[in-house]
Protein backbone atom coordinates (compact mmCIF):
# COMPACT_ATOMS: atom_id res chain seq x y z
CA UNK A 1 0.00 0.00 0.00
CA UNK A 2 1.56 3.29 -1.15
CA UNK A 3 0.00 6.17 0.79
CA UNK A 4 0.70 8.73 -1.95
CA UNK A 5 -1.33 6.73 -4.47
CA UNK A 6 -4.12 6.11 -1.95
CA UNK A 7 -4.29 9.81 -1.01
CA UNK A 8 -4.32 11.04 -4.60
CA UNK A 9 -7.25 8.79 -5.53
CA UNK A 10 -9.02 9.78 -2.29
CA UNK A 11 -8.55 13.47 -3.09
CA UNK A 12 -9.84 13.06 -6.64
CA UNK A 13 -12.94 11.22 -5.43
CA UNK A 14 -13.65 13.84 -2.76
CA UNK A 15 -13.33 16.61 -5.34
CA UNK A 16 -15.67 14.82 -7.68
CA UNK A 17 -18.33 14.45 -4.98
CA UNK A 18 -18.05 17.91 -3.48
CA UNK A 19 -18.13 19.60 -6.91
CA UNK A 20 -21.23 17.68 -7.94
CA UNK A 21 -23.45 20.31 -6.34
CA UNK A 22 -26.76 18.65 -7.17
CA UNK A 23 -25.76 15.32 -5.59
CA UNK A 24 -24.31 17.07 -2.56
CA UNK A 25 -27.42 19.19 -2.05
CA UNK A 26 -29.69 16.18 -2.46
CA UNK A 27 -27.73 14.21 0.15
CA UNK A 28 -28.43 16.95 2.68
CA UNK A 29 -31.90 18.09 1.64
CA UNK A 30 -33.49 14.64 1.21
CA UNK A 31 -33.27 13.54 4.87
CA UNK A 32 -34.23 17.02 6.09
CA UNK A 33 -37.36 16.94 3.94
CA UNK A 34 -38.31 13.49 5.17
CA UNK A 35 -37.85 14.34 8.82
CA UNK A 36 -39.65 17.67 8.62
CA UNK A 37 -42.44 16.12 6.53
CA UNK A 38 -43.00 13.31 9.01
CA UNK A 39 -42.73 15.65 11.96
CA UNK A 40 -45.73 17.59 10.63
CA UNK A 41 -47.62 14.61 9.23
CA UNK A 42 -47.68 12.78 12.55
CA UNK A 43 -48.32 15.74 14.80
CA UNK A 44 -51.69 15.56 16.58
CA UNK A 45 -53.85 12.99 18.28
CA UNK A 46 -55.33 11.25 15.29
CA UNK A 47 -53.10 8.22 15.49
CA UNK A 48 -53.73 7.40 19.14
CA UNK A 49 -54.22 3.71 19.68
CA UNK A 50 -54.18 1.70 22.92
CA UNK A 51 -51.12 -0.49 23.06
CA UNK A 52 -50.57 -2.94 25.92
CA UNK A 53 -47.47 -5.08 26.34
CA UNK A 54 -48.09 -8.43 28.04
CA UNK A 55 -45.44 -10.58 29.74
CA UNK A 56 -46.37 -14.28 30.37
CA UNK A 57 -49.62 -14.21 28.47
CA UNK A 58 -51.15 -17.73 28.32
CA UNK A 59 -54.49 -19.49 27.77
CA UNK A 60 -54.90 -20.32 31.49
CA UNK A 61 -54.66 -16.84 32.86
CA UNK A 62 -56.97 -15.10 30.41
CA UNK A 63 -59.18 -12.36 31.81
CA UNK A 64 -61.89 -10.52 29.95
CA UNK A 65 -59.57 -7.48 29.65
CA UNK A 66 -57.81 -9.31 26.82
CA UNK A 67 -60.94 -9.41 24.74
CA UNK A 68 -61.50 -5.66 24.91
CA UNK A 69 -61.80 -4.20 21.42
CA UNK A 70 -59.46 -1.50 20.07
CA UNK A 71 -56.59 -2.55 22.29
CA UNK A 72 -53.50 -3.93 20.60
CA UNK A 73 -51.89 -6.57 22.86
CA UNK A 74 -48.20 -7.21 22.24
CA UNK A 75 -46.42 -10.30 23.62
CA UNK A 76 -43.24 -9.33 25.40
CA UNK A 77 -40.47 -11.66 26.51
CA UNK A 78 -39.58 -11.37 30.18
CA UNK A 79 -35.98 -10.52 29.24
CA UNK A 80 -37.34 -7.46 27.44
CA UNK A 81 -39.19 -6.20 30.51
CA UNK A 82 -36.84 -3.26 31.17
CA UNK A 83 -36.98 -1.85 27.61
CA UNK A 84 -40.77 -2.32 27.71
CA UNK A 85 -40.98 -0.29 30.94
CA UNK A 86 -38.88 2.38 29.20
CA UNK A 87 -41.45 2.41 26.42
CA UNK A 88 -44.20 3.03 28.98
CA UNK A 89 -42.10 5.94 30.27
CA UNK A 90 -41.88 7.33 26.72
CA UNK A 91 -45.61 6.75 26.00
CA UNK A 92 -44.74 4.25 23.29
CA UNK A 93 -46.66 1.62 25.27
CA UNK A 94 -49.75 2.73 27.16
CA UNK A 95 -49.53 -0.12 29.65
CA UNK A 96 -47.32 -3.10 30.45
CA UNK A 97 -48.78 -6.18 32.17
CA UNK A 98 -46.88 -8.96 33.90
CA UNK A 99 -49.49 -11.71 34.22
CA UNK A 100 -47.49 -14.03 36.54
CA UNK A 101 -46.57 -11.23 38.90
CA UNK A 102 -50.05 -9.67 38.57
CA UNK A 103 -48.51 -6.23 38.14
CA UNK A 104 -49.02 -3.48 35.61
CA UNK A 105 -47.08 -0.33 34.70
CA UNK A 106 -48.62 2.90 33.52
CA UNK A 107 -47.22 6.39 33.03
CA UNK A 108 -48.79 8.83 35.46
CA UNK A 109 -48.97 11.50 32.77
CA UNK A 110 -50.59 9.29 30.11
CA UNK A 111 -54.35 9.74 29.52
CA UNK A 112 -54.38 6.44 27.58
CA UNK A 113 -52.74 4.68 30.52
CA UNK A 114 -55.37 6.12 32.84
CA UNK A 115 -58.18 4.89 30.59
CA UNK A 116 -56.65 1.42 30.29
CA UNK A 117 -56.22 1.24 34.06
CA UNK A 118 -59.97 1.79 34.48
CA UNK A 119 -60.79 -0.81 31.83
CA UNK A 120 -58.44 -3.34 33.49
CA UNK A 121 -60.00 -2.77 36.89
CA UNK A 122 -63.46 -3.37 35.45
CA UNK A 123 -62.63 -6.49 33.48
CA UNK A 124 -61.05 -9.03 35.76
CA UNK A 125 -57.83 -7.26 36.64
CA UNK A 126 -58.82 -5.93 40.07
CA UNK A 127 -56.06 -7.88 41.80
CA UNK A 128 -53.29 -6.44 39.58
CA UNK A 129 -50.87 -4.19 41.42
CA UNK A 130 -50.10 -0.80 39.94
CA UNK A 131 -46.49 0.24 39.21
CA UNK A 132 -46.31 3.87 38.31
CA UNK A 133 -43.59 5.23 36.02
CA UNK A 134 -42.79 8.76 34.94
CA UNK A 135 -41.39 10.14 31.71
CA UNK A 136 -41.95 12.58 28.91
CA UNK A 137 -43.69 11.47 25.75
CA UNK A 138 -41.36 10.73 22.88
CA UNK A 139 -42.73 12.22 19.66
CA UNK A 140 -42.82 10.11 16.54
CA UNK A 141 -40.24 12.41 14.99
CA UNK A 142 -37.84 11.78 17.91
CA UNK A 143 -38.29 8.09 17.36
CA UNK A 144 -37.92 8.50 13.60
CA UNK A 145 -34.73 10.57 13.39
CA UNK A 146 -32.16 7.87 14.31
CA UNK A 147 -33.52 5.59 11.59
CA UNK A 148 -33.86 8.27 8.91
CA UNK A 149 -30.26 9.34 9.46
CA UNK A 150 -29.25 5.68 9.06
CA UNK A 151 -31.39 5.32 5.97
CA UNK A 152 -29.80 8.35 4.36
CA UNK A 153 -26.41 6.87 5.12
CA UNK A 154 -27.52 3.63 3.53
CA UNK A 155 -28.45 5.28 0.22
CA UNK A 156 -25.31 7.39 0.18
CA UNK A 157 -23.08 4.40 0.99
CA UNK A 158 -24.63 1.90 -1.41
CA UNK A 159 -25.11 4.18 -4.39
CA UNK A 160 -22.06 6.36 -3.68
CA UNK A 161 -19.75 3.37 -3.94
CA UNK A 162 -21.68 0.65 -5.75
CA UNK A 163 -23.09 2.80 -8.51
CA UNK A 164 -20.08 5.09 -8.94
CA UNK A 165 -17.52 2.28 -9.26
CA UNK A 166 -19.75 0.53 -11.82
CA UNK A 167 -19.93 3.81 -13.77
CA UNK A 168 -16.11 4.02 -13.62
CA UNK A 169 -15.94 0.49 -14.98
CA UNK A 170 -18.39 1.19 -17.78
CA UNK A 171 -16.80 4.40 -19.01
CA UNK A 172 -13.20 3.15 -18.83
CA UNK A 173 -11.88 5.03 -15.78
CA UNK A 174 -11.08 1.72 -14.04
CA UNK A 175 -9.34 0.35 -17.11
CA UNK A 176 -7.14 3.45 -17.27
CA UNK A 177 -6.27 3.17 -13.58
CA UNK A 178 -5.52 -0.54 -13.98
CA UNK A 179 -2.79 0.42 -16.45
CA UNK A 180 -0.98 2.34 -13.69
CA UNK A 181 0.87 0.91 -10.68
CA UNK A 182 -2.25 1.61 -8.52
CA UNK A 183 -3.35 -1.58 -6.73
CA UNK A 184 -6.98 -2.66 -6.27
CA UNK A 185 -6.53 -2.36 -2.50
CA UNK A 186 -5.34 1.24 -2.79
CA UNK A 187 -8.19 2.14 -5.11
CA UNK A 188 -10.92 0.47 -3.04
CA UNK A 189 -9.56 1.83 0.26
CA UNK A 190 -9.68 5.34 -1.18
CA UNK A 191 -13.29 4.85 -2.29
CA UNK A 192 -14.28 3.54 1.16
CA UNK A 193 -12.50 6.26 3.14
CA UNK A 194 -13.73 9.05 0.86
CA UNK A 195 -17.34 7.93 1.14
CA UNK A 196 -17.04 7.28 4.89
CA UNK A 197 -15.90 10.74 5.84
CA UNK A 198 -18.32 12.40 3.42
CA UNK A 199 -21.21 10.42 4.91
CA UNK A 200 -20.18 11.34 8.43
CA UNK A 201 -19.83 15.02 7.50
CA UNK A 202 -23.23 15.05 5.79
CA UNK A 203 -24.92 13.11 8.60
CA UNK A 204 -23.49 15.56 11.12
CA UNK A 205 -24.80 18.49 9.07
CA UNK A 206 -28.25 16.89 8.80
CA UNK A 207 -28.23 16.09 12.53
CA UNK A 208 -27.44 19.70 13.45
CA UNK A 209 -29.86 21.07 10.85
CA UNK A 210 -32.76 18.92 12.11
CA UNK A 211 -32.04 19.85 15.69
CA UNK A 212 -32.08 23.54 14.85
CA UNK A 213 -35.24 23.28 12.77
CA UNK A 214 -37.43 20.97 14.83
CA UNK A 215 -35.42 19.95 17.89
CA UNK A 216 -35.33 16.34 19.03
CA UNK A 217 -34.44 14.14 21.96
CA UNK A 218 -30.77 13.28 22.43
CA UNK A 219 -30.17 11.76 25.85
CA UNK A 220 -27.05 9.64 25.29
CA UNK A 221 -23.40 10.14 24.39
CA UNK A 222 -22.52 11.85 21.12
CA UNK A 223 -19.36 9.78 20.96
CA UNK A 224 -21.31 6.52 21.17
CA UNK A 225 -23.70 7.76 18.50
CA UNK A 226 -20.77 8.71 16.26
CA UNK A 227 -19.31 5.24 16.75
CA UNK A 228 -22.58 3.55 15.78
CA UNK A 229 -23.04 5.68 12.67
CA UNK A 230 -19.38 5.39 11.61
CA UNK A 231 -19.37 1.60 11.93
CA UNK A 232 -22.80 1.45 10.29
CA UNK A 233 -21.67 3.57 7.36
CA UNK A 234 -18.56 1.42 6.99
CA UNK A 235 -20.63 -1.77 6.90
CA UNK A 236 -22.95 -0.38 4.21
CA UNK A 237 -20.11 1.02 2.11
CA UNK A 238 -18.56 -2.46 2.26
CA UNK A 239 -21.92 -3.85 1.15
CA UNK A 240 -21.83 -1.46 -1.82
CA UNK A 241 -18.40 -2.81 -2.74
CA UNK A 242 -19.93 -6.23 -3.42
CA UNK A 243 -22.09 -4.70 -6.15
CA UNK A 244 -19.13 -2.62 -7.34
CA UNK A 245 -16.92 -5.71 -7.60
CA UNK A 246 -18.06 -7.16 -10.91
CA UNK A 247 -21.18 -5.49 -12.32
CA UNK A 248 -20.62 -3.79 -15.68
CA UNK A 249 -23.85 -1.91 -16.33
CA UNK A 250 -25.34 0.95 -14.34
CA UNK A 251 -28.84 -0.46 -14.93
CA UNK A 252 -27.87 -3.77 -13.35
CA UNK A 253 -26.14 -1.98 -10.48
CA UNK A 254 -29.22 0.19 -9.92
CA UNK A 255 -31.44 -2.91 -9.79
CA UNK A 256 -29.18 -4.72 -7.33
CA UNK A 257 -28.78 -1.68 -5.12
CA UNK A 258 -32.54 -1.16 -5.02
CA UNK A 259 -32.98 -4.83 -4.20
CA UNK A 260 -30.68 -4.32 -1.21
CA UNK A 261 -31.97 -0.96 -0.04
CA UNK A 262 -35.75 -1.36 -0.27
CA UNK A 263 -36.10 -4.34 2.13
CA UNK A 264 -33.76 -2.56 4.53
CA UNK A 265 -35.75 0.63 4.27
CA UNK A 266 -39.00 -1.09 5.29
CA UNK A 267 -37.83 -3.94 7.51
CA UNK A 268 -35.16 -2.28 9.62
CA UNK A 269 -37.52 -0.47 11.95
CA UNK A 270 -36.90 2.96 10.46
CA UNK A 271 -40.57 3.89 9.98
CA UNK A 272 -42.36 1.59 12.41
CA UNK A 273 -41.47 -0.73 15.25
CA UNK A 274 -40.82 -4.34 14.28
CA UNK A 275 -42.47 -5.61 17.46
CA UNK A 276 -45.86 -6.21 15.89
CA UNK A 277 -44.42 -8.13 12.93
CA UNK A 278 -44.20 -11.89 12.49
CA UNK A 279 -41.24 -13.36 14.45
CA UNK A 280 -39.46 -14.57 11.31
CA UNK A 281 -39.60 -11.09 9.83
CA UNK A 282 -38.05 -9.80 13.04
CA UNK A 283 -35.31 -12.44 12.71
CA UNK A 284 -34.80 -11.58 9.03
CA UNK A 285 -34.38 -7.92 9.92
CA UNK A 286 -31.31 -8.80 11.96
CA UNK A 287 -29.30 -9.55 8.81
CA UNK A 288 -29.63 -5.91 7.73
CA UNK A 289 -26.97 -3.45 8.93
CA UNK A 290 -29.62 -0.72 9.01
CA UNK A 291 -31.58 -2.63 11.70
CA UNK A 292 -28.56 -2.57 14.02
CA UNK A 293 -27.76 1.06 13.25
CA UNK A 294 -31.36 2.12 13.90
CA UNK A 295 -31.72 0.07 17.10
CA UNK A 296 -28.42 1.23 18.56
CA UNK A 297 -28.83 4.89 17.59
CA UNK A 298 -32.39 4.92 18.91
CA UNK A 299 -31.52 3.57 22.35
CA UNK A 300 -28.60 6.00 22.61
CA UNK A 301 -30.68 9.01 21.59
CA UNK A 302 -33.90 8.15 23.44
CA UNK A 303 -32.73 6.12 26.45
CA UNK A 304 -29.14 7.27 26.83
CA UNK A 305 -27.90 3.69 26.44
CA UNK A 306 -24.17 3.08 27.01
CA UNK A 307 -21.71 1.03 25.01
CA UNK A 308 -22.49 -2.20 26.88
CA UNK A 309 -26.17 -2.05 25.88
CA UNK A 310 -25.36 -1.57 22.21
CA UNK A 311 -22.48 -4.06 22.11
CA UNK A 312 -24.54 -6.75 20.28
CA UNK A 313 -25.41 -4.21 17.56
CA UNK A 314 -21.79 -3.03 17.27
CA UNK A 315 -20.55 -6.62 17.09
CA UNK A 316 -23.09 -7.46 14.37
CA UNK A 317 -22.05 -4.38 12.35
CA UNK A 318 -18.37 -5.25 12.71
CA UNK A 319 -18.86 -8.84 11.58
CA UNK A 320 -20.98 -7.70 8.61
CA UNK A 321 -18.37 -5.09 7.67
CA UNK A 322 -15.59 -7.68 7.64
CA UNK A 323 -17.61 -10.18 5.59
CA UNK A 324 -18.80 -7.59 3.06
CA UNK A 325 -15.35 -6.02 2.74
CA UNK A 326 -13.64 -9.36 2.16
CA UNK A 327 -16.21 -10.37 -0.43
CA UNK A 328 -15.98 -6.99 -2.17
CA UNK A 329 -12.19 -7.02 -2.34
CA UNK A 330 -11.89 -10.68 -3.36
CA UNK A 331 -14.52 -10.39 -6.07
CA UNK A 332 -13.25 -7.07 -7.43
CA UNK A 333 -12.22 -6.86 -11.08
CA UNK A 334 -11.01 -3.71 -12.81
CA UNK A 335 -12.86 -4.68 -16.00
Amino acid sequence: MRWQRFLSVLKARDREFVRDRSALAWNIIFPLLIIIGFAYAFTGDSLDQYKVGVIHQSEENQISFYSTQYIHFIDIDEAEATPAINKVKRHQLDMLLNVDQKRYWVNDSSPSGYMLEKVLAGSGGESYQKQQVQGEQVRYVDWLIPGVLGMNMMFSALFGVGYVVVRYRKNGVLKRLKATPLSALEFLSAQVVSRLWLIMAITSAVFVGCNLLIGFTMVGSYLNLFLVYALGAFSMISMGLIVAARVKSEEMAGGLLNMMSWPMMFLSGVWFSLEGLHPWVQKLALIFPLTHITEAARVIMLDGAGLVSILPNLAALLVMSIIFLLLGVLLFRWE
Partner: protein
Amino acid sequence: MSSILQVKQLHKQFDQLKAVNGVSFEVDEGMCLGLLGPNGAGKTTTVEMLEAIKTPDKGTIQYRGAPLNEAFRNKAGIMFQSTALQDFITVRESLELFQRLYPEVSELGQLIEDCALGDFLDQETASLSGGQRQRVLLAIALVNDPDIIFLDEPTTGLDPQARHNFWRLIHKIKQKKKTIVLTTHYMDEAYELCDKIIIMDHGEIIAEGSPRDLLSKHFNDVVIKLQKSDDLESKLMSLEDGQITMSITRHESWIEMQTSDVNQTVKQLMEAEISLSTMQIRERTLDDLFLELTGKELRA
Protein backbone atom coordinates in the same frame (compact mmCIF):
# COMPACT_ATOMS: atom_id res chain seq x y z
CA MET B 1 19.14 -1.64 -32.10
CA SER B 2 18.12 -3.63 -28.99
CA SER B 3 14.66 -4.99 -28.61
CA ILE B 4 12.51 -3.54 -25.80
CA LEU B 5 9.52 -5.88 -26.22
CA GLN B 6 9.57 -9.51 -27.33
CA VAL B 7 6.29 -11.19 -28.16
CA LYS B 8 6.21 -14.94 -28.75
CA GLN B 9 3.31 -17.09 -29.89
CA LEU B 10 0.50 -15.04 -28.33
CA HIS B 11 -2.92 -16.66 -28.26
CA LYS B 12 -6.19 -15.27 -26.96
CA GLN B 13 -9.62 -16.80 -27.40
CA PHE B 14 -13.06 -15.42 -26.42
CA ASP B 15 -15.57 -18.27 -26.37
CA GLN B 16 -15.35 -19.72 -29.88
CA LEU B 17 -13.54 -16.71 -31.35
CA LYS B 18 -9.77 -16.92 -31.77
CA ALA B 19 -9.01 -13.22 -31.40
CA VAL B 20 -5.23 -13.63 -31.52
CA ASN B 21 -3.71 -16.77 -32.96
CA GLY B 22 0.03 -17.29 -32.59
CA VAL B 23 1.37 -13.76 -32.98
CA SER B 24 5.13 -13.20 -32.57
CA PHE B 25 7.19 -10.06 -33.16
CA GLU B 26 9.76 -7.79 -31.57
CA VAL B 27 9.75 -4.05 -30.98
CA ASP B 28 13.09 -2.31 -31.14
CA GLU B 29 13.92 0.51 -28.76
CA GLY B 30 13.09 3.95 -30.17
CA MET B 31 10.96 2.52 -32.96
CA CYS B 32 7.38 3.46 -33.84
CA LEU B 33 5.56 0.21 -34.62
CA GLY B 34 2.15 0.38 -36.31
CA LEU B 35 -0.40 -2.38 -35.86
CA LEU B 36 -2.90 -2.30 -38.70
CA GLY B 37 -5.85 -4.45 -39.58
CA PRO B 38 -9.57 -4.38 -40.32
CA ASN B 39 -12.16 -4.35 -37.54
CA GLY B 40 -11.94 -7.58 -35.55
CA ALA B 41 -8.43 -8.39 -36.81
CA GLY B 42 -7.18 -8.78 -33.22
CA LYS B 43 -5.01 -5.69 -32.99
CA THR B 44 -6.67 -4.14 -29.91
CA THR B 45 -6.62 -7.52 -28.12
CA THR B 46 -2.94 -7.85 -29.00
CA VAL B 47 -2.15 -4.36 -27.75
CA GLU B 48 -4.13 -4.89 -24.55
CA MET B 49 -2.07 -8.01 -23.86
CA LEU B 50 1.10 -5.99 -24.48
CA GLU B 51 -0.23 -3.37 -22.05
CA ALA B 52 -0.83 -6.10 -19.42
CA ILE B 53 -4.54 -5.25 -19.40
CA LYS B 54 -5.50 -8.67 -20.77
CA THR B 55 -3.74 -11.94 -19.99
CA PRO B 56 -2.76 -14.15 -22.92
CA ASP B 57 -4.10 -17.71 -22.99
CA LYS B 58 -0.73 -18.85 -24.32
CA GLY B 59 2.54 -17.24 -25.28
CA THR B 60 4.96 -14.83 -23.63
CA ILE B 61 5.58 -11.09 -23.60
CA GLN B 62 8.86 -9.79 -22.26
CA TYR B 63 9.75 -6.19 -21.50
CA ARG B 64 13.54 -5.72 -21.47
CA GLY B 65 13.95 -9.47 -21.10
CA ALA B 66 11.60 -9.88 -18.12
CA PRO B 67 7.89 -10.71 -17.88
CA LEU B 68 5.48 -7.74 -17.64
CA ASN B 69 5.84 -6.71 -14.00
CA GLU B 70 5.74 -3.55 -11.88
CA ALA B 71 8.83 -2.18 -13.62
CA PHE B 72 6.88 -2.37 -16.88
CA ARG B 73 3.83 -0.63 -15.38
CA ASN B 74 6.08 2.14 -14.09
CA LYS B 75 7.66 2.74 -17.49
CA ALA B 76 4.72 2.12 -19.86
CA GLY B 77 2.53 4.98 -21.08
CA ILE B 78 -0.90 3.99 -22.30
CA MET B 79 -3.58 5.77 -24.27
CA PHE B 80 -6.64 3.60 -24.78
CA GLN B 81 -9.07 3.78 -27.67
CA SER B 82 -11.75 5.23 -25.37
CA THR B 83 -11.08 6.48 -21.88
CA ALA B 84 -13.20 8.63 -19.60
CA LEU B 85 -11.65 10.72 -16.88
CA GLN B 86 -13.35 11.36 -13.56
CA ASP B 87 -16.11 13.96 -13.69
CA PHE B 88 -15.67 17.43 -12.18
CA ILE B 89 -11.85 17.21 -12.32
CA THR B 90 -9.76 19.73 -14.24
CA VAL B 91 -7.01 18.91 -16.73
CA ARG B 92 -4.33 19.99 -14.24
CA GLU B 93 -5.87 17.87 -11.47
CA SER B 94 -6.07 14.84 -13.75
CA LEU B 95 -2.39 15.18 -14.63
CA GLU B 96 -1.48 15.58 -10.95
CA LEU B 97 -3.58 12.56 -10.02
CA PHE B 98 -1.80 10.31 -12.51
CA GLN B 99 1.57 11.82 -11.68
CA ARG B 100 1.21 10.72 -8.05
CA LEU B 101 0.57 7.13 -9.09
CA TYR B 102 4.10 6.70 -10.45
CA PRO B 103 7.50 6.67 -8.74
CA GLU B 104 9.26 8.60 -11.55
CA VAL B 105 7.49 11.32 -13.47
CA SER B 106 7.90 13.89 -16.23
CA GLU B 107 8.18 17.55 -15.37
CA LEU B 108 4.59 18.84 -15.46
CA GLY B 109 5.39 22.22 -17.02
CA GLN B 110 7.26 20.60 -19.88
CA LEU B 111 4.47 18.11 -20.43
CA ILE B 112 1.89 20.89 -20.55
CA GLU B 113 4.01 22.75 -23.09
CA ASP B 114 4.77 19.67 -25.21
CA CYS B 115 1.10 18.69 -25.44
CA ALA B 116 -0.12 22.30 -25.73
CA LEU B 117 -2.50 22.09 -22.79
CA GLY B 118 -1.92 25.61 -21.46
CA ASP B 119 -5.13 27.13 -22.80
CA PHE B 120 -7.48 24.74 -21.02
CA LEU B 121 -5.47 23.57 -18.05
CA ASP B 122 -8.06 24.63 -15.48
CA GLN B 123 -11.04 23.47 -17.50
CA GLU B 124 -12.95 20.36 -16.41
CA THR B 125 -12.08 17.40 -18.64
CA ALA B 126 -15.75 16.78 -19.46
CA SER B 127 -15.93 20.12 -21.30
CA LEU B 128 -13.00 19.55 -23.69
CA SER B 129 -13.24 19.20 -27.46
CA GLY B 130 -12.22 15.93 -29.13
CA GLY B 131 -8.75 17.18 -30.06
CA GLN B 132 -8.10 18.74 -26.65
CA ARG B 133 -9.24 15.56 -24.96
CA GLN B 134 -6.86 13.38 -26.99
CA ARG B 135 -3.98 15.72 -26.14
CA VAL B 136 -4.82 15.42 -22.43
CA LEU B 137 -4.97 11.63 -22.71
CA LEU B 138 -1.61 11.67 -24.48
CA ALA B 139 -0.18 13.86 -21.72
CA ILE B 140 -1.48 11.38 -19.14
CA ALA B 141 0.19 8.57 -21.09
CA LEU B 142 3.44 10.54 -20.88
CA VAL B 143 3.12 11.58 -17.25
CA ASN B 144 5.45 8.83 -16.00
CA ASP B 145 8.19 9.64 -18.54
CA PRO B 146 7.62 6.25 -20.18
CA ASP B 147 10.12 4.23 -22.19
CA ILE B 148 7.35 2.65 -24.24
CA ILE B 149 4.05 4.28 -25.24
CA PHE B 150 0.96 2.47 -26.49
CA LEU B 151 -1.44 4.54 -28.57
CA ASP B 152 -4.64 2.72 -29.53
CA GLU B 153 -6.34 4.52 -32.44
CA PRO B 154 -5.44 7.93 -30.99
CA THR B 155 -6.82 10.05 -33.83
CA THR B 156 -10.08 8.25 -34.53
CA GLY B 157 -12.90 10.79 -34.77
CA LEU B 158 -10.64 13.84 -34.96
CA ASP B 159 -10.90 16.45 -37.70
CA PRO B 160 -7.92 16.82 -40.12
CA GLN B 161 -6.41 19.77 -38.22
CA ALA B 162 -6.58 17.94 -34.91
CA ARG B 163 -5.12 14.81 -36.52
CA HIS B 164 -2.17 16.68 -38.00
CA ASN B 165 -1.64 18.47 -34.70
CA PHE B 166 -1.60 15.10 -32.96
CA TRP B 167 0.93 13.75 -35.47
CA ARG B 168 3.22 16.68 -34.66
CA LEU B 169 3.05 15.68 -30.98
CA ILE B 170 3.94 12.09 -31.84
CA HIS B 171 6.87 13.28 -33.94
CA LYS B 172 8.09 15.21 -30.87
CA ILE B 173 7.88 12.04 -28.81
CA LYS B 174 9.78 10.14 -31.51
CA GLN B 175 12.52 12.75 -31.40
CA LYS B 176 12.99 11.88 -27.73
CA LYS B 177 13.76 8.28 -28.82
CA LYS B 178 10.71 6.85 -27.09
CA THR B 179 9.33 3.55 -28.33
CA ILE B 180 5.78 3.76 -29.66
CA VAL B 181 3.26 1.03 -30.44
CA LEU B 182 0.44 2.54 -32.48
CA THR B 183 -2.77 0.97 -33.73
CA THR B 184 -4.66 2.86 -36.37
CA HIS B 185 -7.22 2.55 -39.14
CA TYR B 186 -5.62 5.41 -41.04
CA MET B 187 -3.00 4.25 -43.53
CA ASP B 188 -1.67 7.75 -44.08
CA GLU B 189 -1.11 7.98 -40.31
CA ALA B 190 0.81 4.71 -40.29
CA TYR B 191 2.87 5.84 -43.28
CA GLU B 192 3.57 9.22 -41.66
CA LEU B 193 4.52 7.94 -38.23
CA CYS B 194 5.62 4.32 -38.29
CA ASP B 195 9.09 2.89 -38.86
CA LYS B 196 7.65 -0.59 -39.08
CA ILE B 197 4.14 -1.89 -39.57
CA ILE B 198 2.45 -5.17 -38.85
CA ILE B 199 -0.78 -5.95 -40.69
CA MET B 200 -3.06 -8.38 -38.88
CA ASP B 201 -6.15 -10.22 -40.04
CA HIS B 202 -8.17 -12.97 -38.36
CA GLY B 203 -5.85 -12.83 -35.36
CA GLU B 204 -2.68 -13.50 -37.37
CA ILE B 205 0.13 -11.40 -38.82
CA ILE B 206 -0.17 -11.27 -42.61
CA ALA B 207 2.55 -8.74 -43.40
CA GLU B 208 5.42 -7.13 -41.50
CA GLY B 209 8.09 -4.60 -42.44
CA SER B 210 8.78 -0.92 -43.00
CA PRO B 211 6.05 0.86 -45.02
CA ARG B 212 8.42 1.45 -47.95
CA ASP B 213 9.73 -2.12 -47.95
CA LEU B 214 6.21 -3.53 -47.86
CA LEU B 215 5.08 -1.32 -50.71
CA SER B 216 8.07 -2.12 -52.88
CA LYS B 217 7.74 -5.82 -52.06
CA HIS B 218 4.08 -5.98 -53.05
CA PHE B 219 3.93 -3.40 -55.86
CA ASN B 220 6.16 -2.40 -58.74
CA ASP B 221 3.59 -0.21 -60.47
CA VAL B 222 1.83 3.14 -60.20
CA VAL B 223 -1.83 4.07 -60.53
CA ILE B 224 -3.25 6.27 -63.28
CA LYS B 225 -6.67 7.67 -62.46
CA LEU B 226 -9.16 9.03 -64.98
CA GLN B 227 -12.56 10.50 -64.32
CA LYS B 228 -15.39 8.56 -65.97
CA SER B 229 -16.96 10.15 -69.07
CA ASP B 230 -19.51 9.10 -71.70
CA ASP B 231 -17.07 7.71 -74.25
CA LEU B 232 -14.28 6.61 -71.90
CA GLU B 233 -15.74 3.18 -71.25
CA SER B 234 -16.16 2.25 -74.93
CA LYS B 235 -12.66 3.50 -75.79
CA LEU B 236 -11.18 1.53 -72.91
CA MET B 237 -13.02 -1.61 -74.01
CA SER B 238 -11.48 -1.33 -77.45
CA LEU B 239 -8.13 -0.83 -75.78
CA GLU B 240 -8.63 -3.90 -73.60
CA ASP B 241 -9.26 -6.00 -76.73
CA GLY B 242 -5.74 -5.25 -77.88
CA GLN B 243 -2.38 -5.66 -76.18
CA ILE B 244 -2.16 -3.27 -73.24
CA THR B 245 0.34 -2.74 -70.43
CA MET B 246 -2.08 -2.10 -67.60
CA SER B 247 -4.82 -3.63 -65.49
CA ILE B 248 -8.02 -1.67 -65.09
CA THR B 249 -10.19 -1.22 -61.99
CA ARG B 250 -13.58 0.49 -62.29
CA HIS B 251 -14.94 2.64 -59.46
CA GLU B 252 -18.14 4.68 -59.15
CA SER B 253 -16.79 7.83 -60.80
CA TRP B 254 -13.17 6.94 -61.51
CA ILE B 255 -11.28 4.39 -63.48
CA GLU B 256 -7.90 3.31 -62.17
CA MET B 257 -5.17 1.74 -64.28
CA GLN B 258 -2.28 0.00 -62.60
CA THR B 259 0.85 -0.01 -64.71
CA SER B 260 4.57 -0.51 -64.31
CA ASP B 261 5.28 1.44 -67.53
CA VAL B 262 3.68 4.87 -67.32
CA ASN B 263 5.07 6.13 -70.66
CA GLN B 264 3.79 3.14 -72.58
CA THR B 265 0.36 3.32 -70.89
CA VAL B 266 -0.04 7.04 -71.56
CA LYS B 267 0.96 6.44 -75.17
CA GLN B 268 -1.70 3.72 -75.48
CA LEU B 269 -4.35 5.99 -73.94
CA MET B 270 -3.49 8.79 -76.37
CA GLU B 271 -3.59 6.40 -79.31
CA ALA B 272 -7.08 5.38 -78.21
CA GLU B 273 -7.98 9.12 -78.25
CA ILE B 274 -8.84 9.11 -74.54
CA SER B 275 -8.86 12.56 -72.99
CA LEU B 276 -6.15 12.92 -70.33
CA SER B 277 -7.47 16.21 -68.92
CA THR B 278 -8.57 14.55 -65.66
CA MET B 279 -5.57 12.22 -65.40
CA GLN B 280 -3.81 11.78 -62.06
CA ILE B 281 -0.79 9.60 -61.41
CA ARG B 282 -0.08 8.37 -57.92
CA GLU B 283 2.25 5.94 -56.25
CA ARG B 284 0.92 2.89 -54.50
CA THR B 285 -0.08 3.57 -50.88
CA LEU B 286 -0.64 1.55 -47.75
CA ASP B 287 -4.36 1.76 -48.52
CA ASP B 288 -3.73 -0.30 -51.67
CA LEU B 289 -1.61 -2.76 -49.75
CA PHE B 290 -4.17 -3.01 -46.95
CA LEU B 291 -7.01 -3.69 -49.38
CA GLU B 292 -4.95 -6.15 -51.36
CA LEU B 293 -4.04 -8.12 -48.27
CA THR B 294 -7.31 -7.98 -46.37
CA GLY B 295 -9.81 -7.82 -49.23
CA LYS B 296 -12.40 -5.22 -50.16
CA GLU B 297 -15.51 -6.83 -48.73
CA LEU B 298 -17.15 -5.01 -45.82
CA ARG B 299 -16.41 -6.53 -42.40
CA ALA B 300 -18.99 -6.75 -39.65
